[in-house]
């Protein structure tokens, strides 16, 4: 059939889709597949007053908070497993510089899902009876969730309202130029995030022919019709990992974690690893090939045999 145009764009161009004041949701879970090359580019370009709608993209939140670009966060949990609290993010909240709206994981996922399914609300059963619903962050409590009775009886559920981020940024394993996206391992909240968002940007380890996608259609997470832009960014999740490609870089994460204890050290770190490097390939060069290759997973196991526990 006839050729179809490509959605492949540069990182610079993709990042321009996130304006100051925009709302953003980002893929990933714990130390896995967070779109951090994209996050560093946003930091290089500079943004302000961003809103995050997040479940577990702790590193994205932390770096955006460290760079002073965050204003508001709808979220359920930011925690560096094996390290501790997200220090710059937590400090920003404690200083009143970032406003937060708390949820349970299921509450956040349900709000994104409501938007993705085109529904004005989603019924669910968690969060009831707690301060998550009783204490408002920046959202009026009756806009976030309402207790309601089932139309078919006396059962009470919590209805949560949809959250529609302007942009979803996802890092995945591979995509074709049309935007068919595959990811191995856990898919975290990517399905719900991509469907809820107005614009979907996907950064990937590899660009492959559509024929490669068609060989394993069961592995396709996002079909092309869900995706607006594709950016080729090998090691684009570093210092987090990508299942089947590379493990998270514990030493680099630990370095950041140490730096993030103070604002000046964080600034030095950001200067070195974001502002100081013109683009992602300079970043990879700065890390060095030895280090990047050492992170590559054992092909038999899918992970590095020697775990570093924080």
């Amino acid at each position, binding site marked *: 059939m006839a050729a179809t145009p490509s959605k492949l764009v540069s990182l610079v161009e993709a990042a321009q889709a996130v304006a100051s004041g925009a709302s953003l949701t980002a893929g990933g879970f714990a130390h896995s597949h967070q779109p951090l090359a994209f996050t560093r580019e946003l930091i290089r370009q500079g943004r302000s007053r961003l809103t995050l709608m997040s479940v577990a993209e702790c590193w994205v939140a932390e770096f955006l908070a460290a760079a002073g670009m965050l204003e508001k966060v709808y979220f*359920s949990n930011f925690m560096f497993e094996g390290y501790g609290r997200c220090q710059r993010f937590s400090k920003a909240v404690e200083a009143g510089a970032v406003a937060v709206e708390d949820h349970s994981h299921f509450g956040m*996922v349900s709000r994104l899902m409501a938007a993705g399914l085109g529904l004005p609300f989603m019924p669910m059963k968690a969060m009831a009876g707690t301060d998550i619903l009783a204490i408002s962050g920046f959202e009026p409590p009756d806009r976030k969730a309402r207790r309601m009775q089932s139309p078919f009886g006396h059962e009470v559920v919590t209805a949560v309202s949809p959250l529609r981020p302007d942009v979803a940024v996802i890092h995945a394993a591979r995509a074709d130029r049309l935007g068919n996206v595959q990811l191995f391992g856990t898919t975290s909240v990517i399905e719900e995030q991509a469907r809820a968002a107005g614009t979907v940007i996907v950064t990937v380890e590899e660009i492959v022919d559509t024929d490669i996608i068609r060989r394993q259609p069961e592995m396709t997470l996002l079909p092309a019709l869900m995706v607006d832009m594709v950016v080729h960014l090998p090691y684009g999740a570093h210092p987090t990992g990508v299942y089947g490609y590379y493990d998270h870089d514990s030493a680099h994460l630990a370095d950041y974690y140490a730096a993030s204890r103070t604002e000046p050290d964080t600034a030095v770190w950001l200067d070195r690893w974001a502002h100081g490097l013109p683009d992602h390939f300079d970043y990879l060069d700065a890390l060095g090939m030895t280090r990047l290759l050492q992170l590559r997973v054992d092909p038999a196991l899918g*992970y590095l045999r020697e775990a570093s526990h924080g």
Partner: protein
Amino acid sequence: MAEVSRDEYMAVAASREIRDSDTAFIGTGLPMVAAYLAKATHAPRVNLVFESGIIDPRPVDLATGVGDYRLAHGSTKIAGTFYALSLLQQGKVDIGFLGTAEIDAYGNLNSTVIGPYHRPKVRLPGSGGANDIASMAKRFVVIARLDRKRFVEKVQYLTTPGFLTGPGAREAAGLPGAGPVRVISDRAILGFGPDSKRMRIERLYPGETLAAVQEHCAFPIEASPSLEAEPEPDAHLLRLLREVIDPKGVYVGRGER
């Protein structure tokens, strides 16, 4: 064999809470160690579920987190976060384990803020799946070291529902799970009065006293009528913990006492 540490008492006690054939919702750390221990001993059919979307991993190497690739590799199903959490709402999850920064006499937990919500003294990580587990798992177990700053009269922010304000409150809120069944601390195993829903002391570790436990708890806490002494874990369990499950002592400290 080295003296049994508090962590080892906690891991063994937590493991005992898992029944064979349970579906257990597991986080990193002591709960993972406890689940692996249970699976290796009295509960070979326990089905482990992680909030990252991993079901029933092959417990080869201890993971560094719930999204760790060593859990994903060789699991029997990999899905996403919604799938894992929706199992809770479906009523498929029998037991979950939670940690906490604060806990009150009704088993309510705070993992959100210390101080006022809008300008907290300490911003903590937030609920994550904890509220979901506590709301919807059939039962849940808290693992927390005894400390007057942790065991408090009133949590500063109620992140995760225990029995809320007491008998009947969970039902009124429409929470499908039955609530907390055990609090495993580093000095004693605590439970809840069947009628009062208040925390009480059920088992003391060797060398501990009621008074010591009460002293480390900022709310009044009584002994259960059936108070028992927790025996030292048997050698087989200790060997599994020390040599097979957590040989480096990453999550289970050694000989602290």
